[in-house]
């Protein structure tokens, strides 16, 4: 019972991160109908920026934890968003209307480039930072087993909730959100109505990258260990989450992230940690086969 509760907490934390990354996939897919293969690397870049900021703060003697956290968030989000914008400008925008394989290959090229870029500039070795703070809330304890909701985990879940709420507000209530949804429905019509489609697409990439940066920072807080290759697996898992929730659907991405996080936590705990990635991939294949629209997605009619 206690063990299961602990896994629930771990899964929730993990799922929050996957959900944040998955939103980026789902938004880009919604607006330009392609998988942004480089999105996992954007998350990795966000994590590196968080580590860099943390180390900078330590070196400059900036002490109190909340200030460090804010600095990490700000720097990581700002620079990662710039990377997201640049990726779209360089790898995808020149390819509007190109043969359908072209943007996919370009995306993979971008992903390979970014991974090697970070490896070459920052080194291939693991970067680890000490935990920002220890301890947490003890939820349950038996004679030799305690279920704790660590402070870092709590931060991850709370920050994710706040970010997602703000994001949902933006999509449903602001004029950018309306333009974004209009471009998703019909980019040509949106352009005729005076919406700057290019700008909207750019903003979509920026937002997706910003959310991935938050996820990257959460990963640093939670695990404290990163390297240049973390984007690959995290990217596939978040993509699975987006497909599971229904690609194109933002609530679906959050739900999918949560489910994937929980599956992974419980699979590792009760079945076999070595095959946890296999479990996620199997979910991806099964969903695509039996319910390609996902849990919350709309049916997609083949246009002839």
């Amino acid at each position, binding site marked *: 019972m206690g063990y299961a509760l602990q896994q629930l907490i771990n899964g929730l934390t993990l799922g929050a991160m996957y959900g944040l990354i998955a939103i980026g996939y789902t938004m880009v897919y919604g607006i330009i109908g392609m998988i942004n293969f480089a999105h996992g690397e954007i998350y990795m870049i966000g994590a590196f920026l968080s580590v860099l900021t943390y180390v900078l703060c330590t070196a400059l003697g900036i002490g109190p934890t909340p200030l460090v956290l804010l600095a990490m968030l700000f720097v990581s989000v700002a620079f990662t968003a710039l990377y997201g914008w640049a990726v779209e400008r360089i790898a995808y925008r020149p390819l509007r209307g190109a043969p359908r394989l072209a943007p996919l290959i370009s995306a993979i090229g971008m992903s390979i480039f970014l991974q090697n870029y970070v490896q070459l500039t920052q080194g291939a070795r693991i970067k680890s930072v000490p935990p920002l703070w220890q301890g947490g809330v003890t939820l349950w304890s038996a004679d030799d087993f305690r279920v704790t909701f660590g402070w870092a985990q709590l931060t991850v879940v709370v920050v994710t909730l706040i970010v997602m709420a703000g994001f949902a507000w933006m999509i449903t209530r602001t004029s950018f959100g309306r333009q974004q949804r209009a471009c998703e429905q019909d980019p040509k019509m949106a352009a005729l109505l005076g919406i700057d489609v290019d700008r909207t697409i750019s903003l979509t990439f920026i937002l997706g990258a910003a959310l991935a940066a938050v996820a990257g920072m959460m990963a640093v807080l939670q695990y404290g260990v990163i390297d240049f290759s973390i984007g690959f697996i995290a990217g596939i898992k978040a993509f699975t989450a987006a497909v599971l929730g229904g690609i194109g659907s933002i609530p679906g991405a959050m739900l999918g992230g949560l489910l994937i996080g929980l599956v992974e936590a419980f699979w590792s705990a009760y079945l076999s940690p070595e095959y946890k990635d296999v479990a996620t991939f199997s979910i991806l294949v099964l969903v695509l086969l039996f319910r390609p629209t996902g849990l919350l997605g709309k049916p997609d*009619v*083949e246009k*002839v």
Partner: protein
Amino acid sequence: MTPLLTVDRLVMRFGGITAIDGLSLQVPRGAITAVIGPNGAGKTTLFNCLTGFYRPSAGRILLHEDDGSERDLTRLKGHRIAREARIVRTFQNIRLFGGMTVLENLLVAQHHALAQASRFALAGLLHTPGYRRAEREALEFARRWLAELGLTAVADTPAGALPYGTQRRVEIARALCARPRLLCLDEPAAGLNPRESAELNVLLTALRDEHGLTLLFIEHDMSVVMNVSDHVVVMNFGRKIAEGPPEAMRRDPEVIRAYLGEEDEEAADA
């Protein structure tokens, strides 16, 4: 004479939208039938149902075989409609294999016969006489249609590099190479200049008279419809509102209302 095809109370829904709403019609054998109607009337959706791209929500599409038997096409898988029922179509927004030459396009249309002769590519790899014969026949068949449609000169040109009007003809030639019994053309005159449009009239008539084909086509260009069709079906809001010979359709009050609009039109259809 029995019709070639009977559409029986066909319904096609997408989510909450009903694109075809209990449509019944018959396609007479060896004749040219035009389907007309305002935009959004469900004409292309009808084509997509006939050629197996959509699975209808309800209703039947019956093909009357020469021996008098019937076959329900709604149970047939997409690609088997072209292969077995021999209903072949063209597309409103031309779908050629753009990087391949015109001749290659025409050979792909004969894929089934050629693939059988090549026996899972084995006979083809070994270059057996049987495969060589099948390949020669396919080339000869393609050559005949190329000549008939005046495409011989561009046979070795990539299809995507040709002018629009020529691409339309290539698409028809390719469909013909699939040896159809019923040829469905989705707006064959769209984007053609008057001269090309007149040539199309001649071609369609020739296909009916000299090759005994049954044709079904969607068209907005009334000059083509009036000149070549034997039978006209008028659709609006997913239903058939009139059918008959072209001259009669021109005077039909329902048809005029559908095209020119009238104030109670929406009320009547809702």
